[in-house]
């Protein structure tokens, strides 16, 4: 019974924690995007065109030192864009290291190749290839994650979306993405309220099936609300002249600095590609 009690709180609390996390993450990103730094100064379209190739090349490189250089570049950009390394370490590096480290750990022993050392008690042998494989995976994952997080942290979300149009994303998708992002927070808030009110009512004695029913009913409530919401939003859009085609305002202007940085980024990407072959 205690377990069930603890468990019911666990579910509610864990869900609540993940909602709050998402909200905080978004808030923090908006704060950082307002700061004055290298990436914040660049036109969002330039940022996308400059950083995407670096992510791809981090995935493409076949030499560890090239990936390491790209990672160092990401750190340098973070410093120039006043993104605190502590934040980056907590939010990105540690998470990726834990996850990918856990995943790649067995590869140390499982990859065939000459043994370079062995675990004291178990006697499993670490192979040179296994070690390299683990380092490849971790480095790549860290580098790509750092670049993509930098892109998002230093750009207001609405601008990221509008800038996606340089990748030939149709306007309608850009609009849908923007609205999705907007309503994620409304639904998160809804879900959050639903859970908090449930939490205040639960004294701590719900067995598994009951909890499950409560959880899935919450999803059901949210789904009904979602459908209702989509109908209402449609009416609100139509009321302001929406007839299926959407028109958006994009007000980006590039200057010489954008072009110079773009050229620099592309050159680095090309060099990394060349040396990483």
């Amino acid at each position: 019974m205690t377990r069930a009690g603890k468990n019911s709180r666990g579910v509610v609390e864990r869900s609540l924690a993940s909602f709050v996390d998402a909200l905080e993450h978004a808030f923090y990103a908006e704060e950082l995007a307002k700061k004055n730094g290298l990436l914040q100064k660049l036109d969002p379209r330039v940022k996308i065109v400059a950083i995407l190739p670096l992510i791809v090349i981090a995935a493409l490189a076949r030499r560890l030192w090239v990936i390491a250089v790209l990672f160092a570049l990401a750190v340098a950009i973070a410093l120039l864009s006043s993104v605190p390394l502590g934040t980056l370490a907590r939010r990105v590096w540690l998470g990726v290291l834990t996850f990918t480290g856990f995943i790649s750990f067995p590869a140390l022993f499982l990859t065939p190749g000459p043994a370079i050392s062995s675990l004291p008690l178990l006697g499993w042998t670490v192979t040179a290839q296994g070690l390299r494989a683990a380092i490849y995976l971790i480095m790549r994952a860290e580098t790509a994650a750092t670049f993509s997080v930098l892109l998002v942290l230093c750009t207001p979300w609405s601008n990221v979306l509008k800038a996606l149009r340089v990748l030939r994303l149709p306007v309608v998708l850009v609009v849908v993405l923007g609205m999705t992002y907007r309503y994620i927070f409304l639904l998160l808030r809804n879900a959050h309220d639903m859970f908090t009110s449930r939490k205040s009512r639960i004294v701590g004695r719900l067995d598994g099936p009951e909890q499950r029913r409560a959880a899935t009913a919450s999803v059901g409530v949210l789904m009904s609300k979602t459908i209702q919401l989509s109908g209402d939003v449609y009416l609100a859009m139509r009321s302001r002249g929406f007839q299926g085609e959407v028109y958006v305002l994009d007000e980006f202007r590039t200057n010489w600095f954008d072009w110079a940085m773009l050229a620099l980024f592309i050159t680095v990407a090309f060099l990394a590609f060349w040396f990483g072959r």
Partner: protein
Amino acid sequence: MHIPDGYLSPSTCALLYGTAIPFWYTAFARVKRLMNTRLVPLLAVASAFCFVIMMFNVPLPGGTTGHAVGVGAATVVLGPWASMLSVSIALLIQAVFFGDGGITTFGANSFNMAIVGSLVAHFTYRAVAGRTAVTSSRRVIAAALAGYTAINVAALLTAFELGIQPLFFKDASGAPLYAPYALHIAIPAMMLGHLTFAGLAELFVAGGVVAYLQRTNPALLGQRSAAGAKEDASPAAASGWKTTRPLWIRLALLMLLTPLGILAAGTAWGEWEAKDFSDAQMRRQITAASGQVAPPSEQPRGLARLSSLWSAPFPKYAPPFVHHPAFGYVMSAMFGCGLILGFFLFMGWMIGKRGSVDSGTSP
């Protein structure tokens, strides 16, 4: 199941983006035609819903919790096409904004979870639910099974994509460049968690949502195109089927035909399994890596026999590169996908047929 950046080679990513695009395109055209001007708000809000669902923790038997992708629930309420788009959009926002799943691997993640997940959920739901009443308990079971099957097929695909990486992509020293585990490790490791916890979470969410909606808002389950489209349920689904059927048939045929005769020439399956599965040291390590579940001790004989069957048409004329084991893997995978697709095509055809017979006999 969200594959991060760096786990798949760029060529695999490109291939999967390429595979996903026609589906996105078709889904978009379909949903647009059905929803007309309501498309934008529906997609936006449904995607937000899918996103939020991925954060819900569901209590599972045994005292743990897991969270679902929500693809089962989304497919039952929104239909496979809208669900495919909504889950993809939710994945995109997760990847770009929350760093959950990679940007280069977004195509792969969408293909596994959103596209294949929605289609598998749709066909499972329709096959099990049949033409039962909206409020029948069979629909709850159908939805639960749909969620469970969808998430497991998606996990299998993910495992497969990860598992072929070390086969193709190694550096000069032989170290794997991307995900390091071959299929015989990747598949059991991935499936173990999904056949149990993650699968159950999806099962409970999909079943629970349908049970809840049956009590409170059965109208949502009655019409395939929720949120006010005027089309009636089955014609909408059927017409969707008809317009896209050529696409499917072509894809299935292509997949079935390519590896004919080439598959067995490489005897890829036999090679690695015979070697690895009988090596005691290797077996221990696989067992450890797959969460203490021992892999089968023998290579599956059925497959070996099957491959000799396929090799019959032109064993000698196959070009040399087909003897490369990696090629065999891909061919057999294509073949497997083709089989699955063919199976669903057949099911869809059967359902369609049964539907028309039913409506023919009913007054």
